[in-house]
């Protein structure tokens, strides 16, 4: 069998004295959607940030398409080296706070990196950007600036922006948590569509419904380790671990 898209082995990450990840193992197959649940401070976001080396892990191994991304020149500093380019060209990320570039309009947000990083011509980058924004339902917002867009629209621009780099894996870091309730659905719909097209996705979320419906695997994290993982129905309906039960009880009660 081919290498998994992503393989994590014993990933450790500390911020000073604080150990945030304490030996995480995880395999993500090509085209799989893995939803990561857990209380705040459990290390879910840090795990995503390790995968694209925004926070390079201190120990452990991360294989992306079979390639060890934590070795090689510059590893551990998060600075320019072959593994960083390798990773950033294959891994797209969407953030909780959107992080759109406020001085650029929607289309420029999407077209900038392909032009500057992939060396596409301006026309090519823009036509691809237009296509992507159309795909996320924003064909009429190409020249709007982020401050004139709703949170849901901004987040869809952010998804299009990440897709413009033609990633093989997409990381979603609580992308609906900063949204008003009525705007959550449009973003989840976009992600659902992406999943159905076969994108490999690592999704940190509190949306149980999304995890159940779209996730191929659900991972429950607490205290920097993976407590439980499996099929959504198994983990969400028949959790084995006490910590999982407690968390799901708190989340699902209201």
């Amino acid at each position, binding site marked *: 069998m081919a290498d998994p898209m992503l393989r994590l082995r014993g990933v450790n990450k500390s911020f000073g004295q604080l150990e945030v990840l304490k030996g995480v193992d995880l395999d993500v197959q090509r085209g799989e959607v893995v939803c990561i649940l857990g209380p705040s401070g459990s290390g879910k976001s840090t795990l995503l940030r390790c995968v*694209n080396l*925004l926070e390079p892990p201190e120990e452990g191994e991360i294989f992306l398409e079979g390639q060890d991304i934590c070795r090689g020149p510059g590893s551990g*500093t*998060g*600075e*320019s080296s072959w593994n960083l*380019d390798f990773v*950033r*060209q294959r*891994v*797209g*990320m969407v*953030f909780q*706070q959107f*992080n*759109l*570039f*406020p*001085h650029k309009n929607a289309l420029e947000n999407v077209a*900038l*990196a392909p032009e*500057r*990083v*992939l060396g596409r011509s301006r026309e090519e980058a823009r036509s691809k950007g237009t296509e992507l924004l159309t795909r996320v339902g924003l064909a009429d917002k190409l020249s709007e600036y982020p*401050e004139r867009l709703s949170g849901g629209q901004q987040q869809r621009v*952010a998804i299009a*922006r*990440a897709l413009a*780099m033609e990633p093989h894996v997409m990381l979603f870091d609580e992308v609906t948590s900063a949204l008003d309730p009525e705007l959550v659905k449009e973003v989840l719909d976009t992600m659902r569509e992406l999943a159905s097209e076969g994108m490999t996705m690592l999704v940190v979320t509190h949306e149980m419904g999304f995890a159940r419906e779209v996730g191929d695997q659900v991972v429950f994290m607490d205290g920097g380790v993976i407590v439980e993982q499996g099929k959504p129905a198994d983990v969400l309906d028949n959790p084995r671990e006490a910590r999982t039960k407690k968390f799901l009880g708190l989340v699902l009660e209201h």
Partner: protein
Amino acid sequence: MKVFFEQYFDFNVMGEHFWEVFDAFLQNLLIWVVAAVLVLSWGLILAFLRQLPGKKFAPVRFLTIAYIDIFRAIPALIVILLISGGVPFLTFLPKDIRIPHWFGKPDPFWYGVAALLLVFGAYMAEVYRAGIEAVPRGQMEAARSLGMSHAQAMRHIVIPQAVTKVPAPMLNEMISLLKETTLVSFIAFGESVLVSREILAERLNSSALILTAFFFLIIILPMARVVDYLIKRNQLKITRGAHIEVG
């Protein structure tokens, strides 16, 4: 009281020496413009060097911070005196640099520009730094996660946003810079304060200094109003942004 007014507000003296003082004031403006263009660029370079990431660039960051700290601490006048007194004797430099007479301007003009550049470059670096640090961290992270290098992210994402946050403090530095051009009078460059003091010596009357002060007022007062306007506009922007986030 009459003596005071005659000493400082003698309109005959002002009238007779008006064009003399005016021409000298134009020299202040010229130093200012030349230095300002250089200061704005040099400050940006320093701010950029100070922000370089990682262990590899630690020496560069250290040197940049040392430079900024030192030149913020030393009075501009001392820097001017040291440069005009020292640079001519740095014999390893070519003569055109030791004793510059570029564009028909005498060497004190260029020593003054150089000293003001060194000092205000350090101030301006701090202004830019405040702007850079006011840009949310997520902007850099988003740019990096899209594959941009640190330099690309700074150039296309962080700095364009940082410079929109700095016009008011930047203009304040420019106002200071304009006033400090008078320090070049200490190394015998014929700018407005030097000329006014020559007139004082000749006529035993200080009115030319008042005339000089008046020229500075005319240029700087509108700039101060622009600073106020920029601050107000920026506050409006912030409240508007907050409003969007809430609702």
